């Protein structure tokens, strides 16, 4: 299928700013789905609120655009009700880990078969450039005129600790890796987390003198490296990319079915 067959073309050009990384994540995501040969009817995409969450409006799947931070809770309901459907939940960094942090760790703990994609641009874009729990320290934002003092979450470490059975990170520069990893995450049976470092040239880039969209994307090339690379040993500040966790553990919907069997036998 052509990539455009997955799009609701009448809503294009989309609302994202020129050079926004979210369009690149969508591009990579659709190529992954295309490669897997999935039918549009078997995919449910659920999102919350924010720039990233407008993604559901643009794709021709069953789409559920919900409330801020709660996408994973809605997705849990859909998945439990119809376990044969594939649930993909793209979220922004604030959506996933500030207001939605509780649902994030509990979805990971249950190991329910949902693919969570954290489109991490380290800023609240929709509301005009406030810092997020992934901005990190010394960042300029509209709510941090004197630079942030808030440390950031490490999405990978958080997801690992919470029990996600597939955890990966990549960037919009590494677009083929985006497709490759999201494809594997969708196939993975259990809760999968893919963090994609994404650029917000409008609010993060301008405020923090990171240049334009091109500079920001190239920044991801310079500041990241493959997991366990020699470069990482030489420069510990580099952010690692790749698949950190990929393990098979009991998946929630399957475990529920086993419980139903026990209940029906009266045990």
């Amino acid at each position, binding site marked *: 299928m052509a990539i455009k067959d997955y799009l609701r073309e009448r809503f294009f050009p989309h609302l994202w700013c020129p050079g926004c990384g979210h369009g690149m994540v969508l591009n990579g995501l659709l190529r992954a789905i295309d490669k897997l040969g999935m039918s549009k*009817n078997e995919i449910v995409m659920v999102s919350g609120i924010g720039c990233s969450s407008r993604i559901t409006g643009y794709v021709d799947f069953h789409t559920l655009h*919900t409330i801020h931070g709660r996408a994973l809770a809605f997705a849990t*309901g859909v998945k439990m009700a119809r376990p044969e459907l594939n649930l993909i939940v793209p979220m922004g960094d604030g959506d996933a880990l500030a207001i939605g942090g509780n*649902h994030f760790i509990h979805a990971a703990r249950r190991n329910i078969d949902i693919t969570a994609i954290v489109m991490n641009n380290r800023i609240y874009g929709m509301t005009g450039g406030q810092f997020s729990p992934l901005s990190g320290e010394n960042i300029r934002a509209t709510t941090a005129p004197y630079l942030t003092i808030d440390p950031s979450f490490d999405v990978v470490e958080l997801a690992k600790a919470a029990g996600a059975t597939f955890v990966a990170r990549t960037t919009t520069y590494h677009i083929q890796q985006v497709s490759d990893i999201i494809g594997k995450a969708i196939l993975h049976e259990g809760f999968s987390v893919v963090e994609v470092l994404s650029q917000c040239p409008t609010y993060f880039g301008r405020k923090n003198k990171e240049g334009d969209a091109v500079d920001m994307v190239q920044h991801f090339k310079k500041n990241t490296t493959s997991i366990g690379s020699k470069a990482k040993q030489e420069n510990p500040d580099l952010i690692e990319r790749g698949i950190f966790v990929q393990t098979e553990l009991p998946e929630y919907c399957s475990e529920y079915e086993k419980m139903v069997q026990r209940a029906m036998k009266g045990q």
Partner: protein
Amino acid sequence: MSENVKFVQGNEACAEAALYAGLDFYAGYPITPSSEITEYLAYHLPQIGGKFLQMEDEIASLCAIIGASLTGRKVMTATSGPGFSLMQEALGYAIMAEIPCVIVDVQRGGPSTGLPTHGSQADVNQARWGTHGDHAIIALTASNHQDVFSITVEAFNLAETYRTPVILLLDELVAHMRERLVIPEPGKIPLVDRLKTSVKEGVDYHPYLPREDGRLPMSDFGGVHRFNVTGLFHDMWGFPSSEPSIVHGLLRHLVDKLENRAHQLACYKEYYTEDAEQLLLSYGSSARSALHTVENRRKRGERLGLLELQTLWPFPEDIVREKCAGMKSVIVVEQNMGQVLQAVKLAVDEPAKVFLANRIDGVFITPADILNILRLIQGKGV
């Protein structure tokens, strides 16, 4: 076949009724005094292949059942005041996206943590106005276990008929009291299943285009029609729109589909109203004491009647106006500071004749409490 008689708590009556109505997906979070509903369904739902989820909080519970409802399941969650407060945003979402679901609020004393193990009826206005923005809502209540059963089934029927959340306002006293319950034979209470679209695959389907009767045929998520669901104002396909005519049209539809049917949606019971000169108006557990008072005073020849409301929202204005007309006085009996009282005063022709008999101290209002007020109003002193 012999009657299926049980001796149960109100919470269990509610859970039994939900199963009778076809509930097959429940998500909840423990909170007093509603936890028995969650526990009961944790036991019974898996036995019939239904889904039970204990979520991380009340917000997630409501969100999860909304998601499940979209796939075609009959869904419910239960909570109490603090949890109901947390649910308000998702409740607005279910109203906006027109997703059938039943939310039980077993009321306890508030605000805040308040009185977790004591009764109250102080969430009536929260049920009406808790979520932001203009909207309409259905809220039902009942005073005894047999009525809790039938009104719970009605809650599911209305949710599925009108594609809307329905709030079931129980209170701690009814929820925790044990009483006889006769479970009706299957089919004795008619059940409503949601209207499914007859639009074939490949033909343009409009999930948000109401029929002439205001109902909107649905298509299950995972089925042949792919569409968008959003809490933003949206067009007939479910896609976001801020076009003034679409915004206006949708808001009118959401409000009118319920408010214009207030008369049809009204469930109520009357006792001794035919020749009554004075009327008690009550609901939920308070109506038990009100009924006791009426029966006692009748024995003494006083022409006292009772109107027991089961539908609180949309407020059955016409019925209340009609039943209160010509009464020497109307006494609203409730366990809050006058939440239904205000609605009654707005509805009747002579609001100066409407009085309040209430308790707000966590103690169940007794017939003696009501009698005291009655005697004051009658000018007989306490």
